[in-house]
């Protein structure tokens, strides 16, 4: 008799199983996609919600933190789309935008794309069943063992599939905008793909529209395939403002040869956020930079987890993440750099820096290097501490009141990574968001 361990299902796990059973007949895609969904859900179901004994989730115990699974958001009503249409017609609306409403692509709110860029909804791509795109969407092995990435693959409702033609040079950013319409707390499962053709250049900027008025659970996944000699720049403004929300994002990136990859994300709080990034250098001589800033207060929890695989020689990776943690917030940084035996001349540097502004804030750092090649330059560093008292005193001695001196130093600490974004408007936008967070702090 074989002893089988049947773990107790939490209410959230049971609700997710019910949701999948109820939703799957209507989820987009043919038989191949349905098979992918079943396999993915089985992978999630076997593992359950990840908990502290799962190494990759040790510091973000989802089983304990996510007590319930919210119902899947319905397709947005026409009236809700109309209301949003008015908002997007207003001044200051982002140009060249693609809008998802509760996870569903809304072409009526989106702009036409420049020559060289083709956009379709995920639902239509899944229905059409193009094997090359579906293989890319499935992540090609990246993130395959992660239960939350699998849950997203099982339930993916919609999203966008962006194809950038080889050689196309797209000067202005493509804005991927997440809007909400449902008034009741709900969950959405989006998956988007951007395929950057060889030698092409494009920038994708992810933002949320408006202030989420309701609690939500967002299971997002963005898959990027960067062709040989291509340049891909990416920013994400992760600003969830409603307490009790859960946002779990998976970012999968395959980077070709002689490519340039640059990504920055700002997380400013609100409930529980985890961004997990799976990146693989598939071709030689590429350069990638991953950066992020998390500004947390209250009981907010933000986790950034990286898996960077050097699968080709002579690639350079820079991963730099900063945290400012106030009150009772918790920051998590996990980064694993894996260098395959043939990935000689790999140059990898990973750094996590946290400033703790209160005695009750906590930071968890777990950097890891796994190196199987013998001619590489790899390093990692992690620091945790308070603001430098000598610097504070210097600024005060020049006349800046303590709060102002503190804000100036915090702004400089966070802003350093923002300034590396090669787009002035985006730099200004992120800087403004950081300033807003700091000013709310000094008022509080």
């Amino acid at each position, binding site marked *: 008799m074989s002893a089988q361990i049947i773990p107790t299902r939490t209410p959230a796990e049971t609700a997710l199983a019910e949701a999948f059973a109820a939703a799957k007949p209507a989820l987009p895609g043919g038989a191949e996609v349905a098979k992918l969904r079943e396999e993915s859900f089985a992978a999630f179901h076997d593992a359950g919600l990840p908990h502290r004994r799962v190494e990759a989730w040790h510091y973000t115990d989802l089983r304990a933190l996510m007590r319930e699974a919210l119902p899947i958001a319905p397709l947005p009503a026409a009236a809700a789309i109309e209301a949003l249409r008015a908002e997007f017609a207003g001044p200051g609306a982002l140009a060249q935008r693609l809008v998802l409403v509760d996870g569903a692509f809304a072409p009526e709110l989106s702009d036409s794309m420049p020559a060289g860029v083709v956009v379709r909804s995920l639902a239509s791509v899944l229905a059409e069943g193009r094997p090359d795109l579906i293989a890319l969407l499935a992540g090609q092995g990246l993130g395959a063992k992660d239960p939350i990435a699998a849950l997203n693959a099982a339930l993916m409702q919609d999203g966008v599939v962006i194809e950038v033609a080889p050689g196309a040079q797209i000067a202005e950013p493509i804005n991927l905008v997440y809007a909400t319409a449902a008034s009741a707390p709900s969950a959405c499962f989006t998956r988007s793909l951007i395929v950057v053709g060889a030698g092409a250049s494009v920038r994708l900027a992810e933002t949320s529209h408006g202030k989420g008025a309701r609690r939500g659970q967002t299971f997002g996944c963005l898959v990027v395939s960067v062709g040989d000699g291509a340049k891909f720049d990416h920013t994400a403004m992760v600003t969830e403002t409603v307490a009790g929300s859960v946002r779990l994002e998976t970012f999968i990136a395959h980077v070709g040869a002689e490519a340039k990859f640059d990504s920055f994300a700002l997380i400013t709080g609100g409930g529980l956020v985890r961004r997990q990034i799976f990146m693989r250098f598939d071709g030689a001589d590429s350069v990638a930079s991953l950066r992020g800033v998390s500004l947390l207060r209250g009981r907010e929890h933000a986790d950034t987890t990286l898996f960077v695989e050097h699968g080709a020689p002579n690639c350079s990776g820079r991963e730099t993440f900063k945290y400012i943690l106030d009150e009772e917030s918790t920051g998590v940084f996990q980064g694993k750099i894996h260098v395959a035996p043939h990935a000689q001349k790999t140059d990898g540097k990973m750094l996590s820096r946290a400033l703790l502004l209160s005695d009750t804030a906590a930071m968890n750092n777990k950097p890891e290097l796994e190196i199987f090649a013998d001619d590489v330059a790899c390093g990692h560093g992690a620091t945790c501490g308070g603001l*430098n008292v*000598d*610097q504070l*005193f*210097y*600024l*005060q*001695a*020049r*006349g*800046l*009141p*303590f709060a*102002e*001196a503190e804000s*100036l*130093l915090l*702004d*400089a*600490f966070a*802003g*350093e990574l923002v300034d590396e974004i090669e787009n002035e408007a985006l730099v200004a936008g992120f800087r403004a968001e950081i300033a807003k967070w700091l000013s709310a702090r000094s008022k509080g």
Partner: protein
Amino acid sequence: MLEIKNLNVSIGDRKILNDFNLTVQDGEVAAIMGPNGTGKSTLSYVIAGRKDYTVETGEVFLDGVNLLELEPDVRAAKGLFLAFQYPLEIPGVATLTFLKAALNAQRKQRGEEELSTPDFMKRVKQASDKLGIKSDMLKRALNVGFSGGEKKRMDILQMALLEPSFGILDETDSGLDIDALRVVAEGVNSLRSPKRGFLVITHYQRLLDYIVPDTVHVMAQGQIVRTGGKELALELEKSGYRDYVTEQAVA
């Protein structure tokens, strides 16, 4: 006028300033000389308002205002300026941004209008030209990657812009070559005025060749032990501090 009366300061169990008394008149340049570890830098930090020290008793008045009750930024707005022995590097804060923030914070504290940007730029240009500070240096992060001489010049530039009524120069000569020393000293000398006093802290006489003091005080074991004119500095250069250091202090 700076008046220090019966100042007793300690860190933990260690007494650093011991019934310290000193008065510096408006327009006077007073030098404090003394061996390492006699409390010279502590004196400057206590006057400027660093929190690491315990002031047991005593008072420090600047133009009649008791500084010890005030936060460091308020002391600065009241006219106190400390030129640091090692000016701090502030990554990510452009020098110009910092200069403007400091100037306007002090003006706000005193109930004055903020400076307009053109007015501010004009003042910065005038002051930085005098000190040979190039405009690209002002765009860089404050003191980051600056040489020792550049950092000191930047501190003097701040003093010129903030126009304090009293300046303390803490070991301004440390880390400077002779050319940089001359530029910094000229900068300080051009700020000398009948209304502005200075306290120059140093352990070498060399600086006082360039910033010629009106009075020289010798400090040992947390006290002024001798006072004289500028010739006292020359005497110390010859004889050293041996006469003023007890065995206890050496230990």
